[in-house]
């Protein structure tokens, strides 16, 4: 009976979302304020009823109601409680419900934090989001009902959650990723609302910026969590594999990164308007495409949910209606938009344009590389594969170029910057970067490699550039401290995110070029040496987990005779499904990770194991965390909260120099 209540509230949510999609939009078109004002209460209702759906499905998982098909497919009586809850998003139906619920959460937030925006604009935003949620709920009702029953005879026990998903990384990764993905729907809705009203101005950009920043921050964390989870759970110690399903979040992220920079230009300088709108549409298209690829079985991948073309056609239809419709609206409205200010050939606008071009080319190449095998098969019937070499060849040079511009952008000025000024500001920084790029890896790792040198030099370039800019921005103040305090959150957010790029860059390069590994057969008592570390296999024991049996090895790691870590890798067999699983053991630290991945147990009791030393690998995720926190800081810049006043001031003083007061627009704030 209870699951039917879930079904019922899903249908109610559908009705509410239809109303939300129709009334405010119709109100905005006809000037009916009553209809427009229905947006907020309807979005609250939608949130509540989708919340009830989620709660009821969660209840079915927790109480082992195997008459519900998804529970029978993804859960099991033996499953520990936390995984029973998270098994909810272990399959297509439940995860899509979560996705839709998150969208309603974003809609509710838009309703709450938009009090200072014009009523008409908010109505349009909520209306577009209402239509989007209606299409998602219809998709669920038509093809992927999470409340489907197993009739007439439910199974006695469930088939169990995939063992790779029984893990803390899985508890956190999908919800975070969805949250970020769905955030781009909001940015998209803002863009559509602006296109509909024909008022694509600096105010629109300012309203969008905090949302674009928050969505970007969450997506960054979501991707980083996925990378971290793959690193320690999927058992191959890799942090990025260019997997066809890893790529769409990256594509969205690249468009999203371009978007937050482009929004900065549009807000401050009122140029690139039509381009910025296009980016907002593209970032959203990337997020829908990610859904499409994962849920249609279009590409074979570790991530893919069960393949079903009818779902694929439905999502493709959603993609066609929303992205196609948006692009049509764009084609009609964009030619009418006028950019108001010109800029010189050496200016911050130009550097941000370079940023945008590079990021969009990168996103397009990842997109092509991901789908090319499918296109090739669609056109010729043959199958080929595109591997990491393609992605690395294209991606790495683009990122190098991007980072070079990243160093110049923040220090350059709007409108016009003189070459001598840049040279004077950055000449020494460039020289120091090259020097330290060569020296640092040598000192820290006693090793040399050209890629690592380039990466460290680029990281130093970013960090010293930030320092130089801070000095320049505080130079005219009575004291440095006072100078630092006069800079806005937007500015600190930008520089913090750039610092995060430097940290990630170091992690990526050093772990790629200085990792070492060995695979070996170890009898009890045997040791294997790797770099400065010695791994000793001290023995193994059997143990029983809550829903699995395991063989656990003890590996003692020493360095120069001093104990470093005791590691316990496991080989598990899950009871319900009988699937084996390897649990690697990691000793993490800021400077290096030590990994032991168990292989198999031979008849004589010896274990095959692969041991890794991965220097600086934590920096990859540390960099992502820094970026995300910084974007959040930028989103809380107080001028977003005092919109009306700022809007007036920005219009009066657009183009003025560096922030002398908190409420004035600051070049590069939050970019």
């Amino acid at each position, binding site marked *: 009976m209870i699951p039917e209540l879930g079904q019922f509230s899903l249908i109610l949510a559908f009705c509410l979302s239809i109303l939300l999609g129709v009334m405010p939009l119709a109100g905005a078109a006809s000037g009916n304020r009553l209809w427009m004002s229905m947006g907020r209460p309807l979005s609250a209702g939608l949130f509540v009823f989708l919340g009830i759906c989620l709660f009821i499905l969660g209840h079915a998982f927790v109480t082992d109601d195997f008459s519900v098909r998804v529970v029978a497919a993804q859960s099991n009586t033996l499953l520990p409680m936390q995984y029973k809850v998270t098994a909810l998003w272990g399959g297509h139906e439940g995860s899509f419900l979560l996705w839709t619920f998150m969208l309603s959460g974003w809609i509710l937030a838009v309703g709450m934090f938009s009090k200072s925006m014009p009523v008409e604009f908010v109505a349009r935003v909520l209306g577009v989001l209402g239509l989007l949620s209606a299409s998602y709920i219809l998709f669920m009702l038509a093809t992927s009902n999470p409340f489907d029953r197993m009739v007439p005879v439910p199974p006695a026990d469930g088939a169990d959650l995939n063992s790779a998903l029984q893990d803390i990384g899985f508890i956190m990764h999908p919800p975070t990723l969805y949250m970020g993905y769905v955030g781009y729907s909001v940015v998209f809705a803002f863009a559509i609302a602006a296109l509909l009203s024909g008022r694509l101005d600096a105010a629109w950009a300012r309203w969008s910026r905090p949302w674009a920043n928050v969505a970007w921050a969450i997506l960054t964390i979501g991707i980083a969590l996925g990378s971290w989870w793959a690193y320690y759970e999927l058992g191959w110690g890799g942090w990025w594999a260019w997997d066809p399903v890893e790529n769409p979040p990256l594509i969205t992220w690249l468009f999203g990164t371009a978007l937050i920079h482009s929004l900065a230009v549009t807000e401050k300088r009122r140029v690139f308007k039509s381009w910025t709108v296009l980016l907002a549409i593209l970032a959203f298209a990337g997020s829908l495409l990610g859904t499409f690829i994962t849920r249609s079985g279009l590409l074979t991948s570790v991530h893919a949910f069960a393949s079903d073309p009818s779902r694929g056609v439905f999502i*493709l239809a959603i993609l066609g209606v929303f992205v196609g419709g948006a*692009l049509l609206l764009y084609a009609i409205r964009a030619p009418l938009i006028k950019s108001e200010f010109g800029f010189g050939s050496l200016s911050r606008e130009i550097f941000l344009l370079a940023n945008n071009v590079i990021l969009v080319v990168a996103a397009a190449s990842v997109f092509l590389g991901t789908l090319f095998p499918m296109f090739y098969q669609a056109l010729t019937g043959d199958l080929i594969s595109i591997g990491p070499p393609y992605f690395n060849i294209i991606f790495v040079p683009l990122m190098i170029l991007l980072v070079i511009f990243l160093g110049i952008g923040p220090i350059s000025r709007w409108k016009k910057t003189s070459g001598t000024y840049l040279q004077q500001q950055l000449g020494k920084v460039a020289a120091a970067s090259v020097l330290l790029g060569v020296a640092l890896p040598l000192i820290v790792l006693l090793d040399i490699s050209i890629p690592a040198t380039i990466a460290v030099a680029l990281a130093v370039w970013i960090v010293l550039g930030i320092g130089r800019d801070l000095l320049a921005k505080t130079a005219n103040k009575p004291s440095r401290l006072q100078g630092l305090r006069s800079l806005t959150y937007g500015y600190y957010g930008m520089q913090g995110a750039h610092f995060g790029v430097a940290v990630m860059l170091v992690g990526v390069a050093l772990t790629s070029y200085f990792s070492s590994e060995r695979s070996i*057969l170890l009898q009890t008592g045997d040791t294997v040496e790797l770099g400065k570390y010695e791994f000793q296999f001290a023995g193994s024991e059997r143990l029983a987990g809550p829903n699995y049996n395991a063989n656990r090895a003890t590996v003692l790691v020493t360095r120069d005779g001093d104990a470093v870590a005791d590691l316990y890798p496991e080989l598990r067999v899950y009871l319900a499904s009988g699937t084996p699983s390897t649990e690697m053991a990691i000793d993490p630290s800021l400077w290096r990770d030590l990994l032991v991945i168990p292989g198999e147990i031979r008849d004589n009791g010896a274990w095959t194991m692969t041991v890794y030393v991965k220097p600086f690998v934590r920096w990859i995720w540390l960099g992502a965390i820094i970026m995300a926190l910084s974007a959040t800081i930028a989103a809380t810049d107080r001028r977003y909260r005092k919109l009306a006043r700022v809007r007036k001031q920005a219009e009066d003083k657009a183009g003025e120099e560096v922030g002398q007061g908190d409420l004035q627009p600051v070049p590069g704030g939050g970019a």
Partner: protein
Amino acid sequence: MKKFIFYAPIAAFFALAILLWRGLYLDPTELPSVLIDKPMPTFAMATLEGEPVGNADLPDSIFLLNVWGSYCLPCLVEHPTFMRLSEEGEIPVVGVNYRDRKPLALDWLDLNGDPFAYSILDEDGRFGIDLGVYGAPETFLVDSEGVIRYRHVGVLEENVWREVFLPAIAELRGVPAAPASR
């Protein structure tokens, strides 16, 4: 006609949507090879041991080209078949060590035994792209002229060897000129 530029995104999008729609009805697990009945791609690579190797170094007889990696668990499953084939001298097997780390690959051969005449080192997977490899394990049957005759995706166990490869090889040996059936 600057106005038409703004229609470019939607045109591109619909072209893409049509391809995506086509793609839905394709089965990515159905794997014909681009290279069936075509000669092996030209290559100049190194073996795992560091010796240079090229097309001229391939066996003069019919042989198997097996794509493997130390990370690949199914490769361990098919490994005994290749060990037997090589020990009994039934057919030469050339390995392609695909997207692996060299020290791990050498360790893997040490641990499990080396059935390969030699393994071509393809660390970044470029040779795999030339071959149209989708992922390890894959096995190609190549005739004495160096023409690829058959491609098997996935684990090659004894029953596959008996039921698929032996008939194909017999056909190749019986009527050398006729193209092998897919």
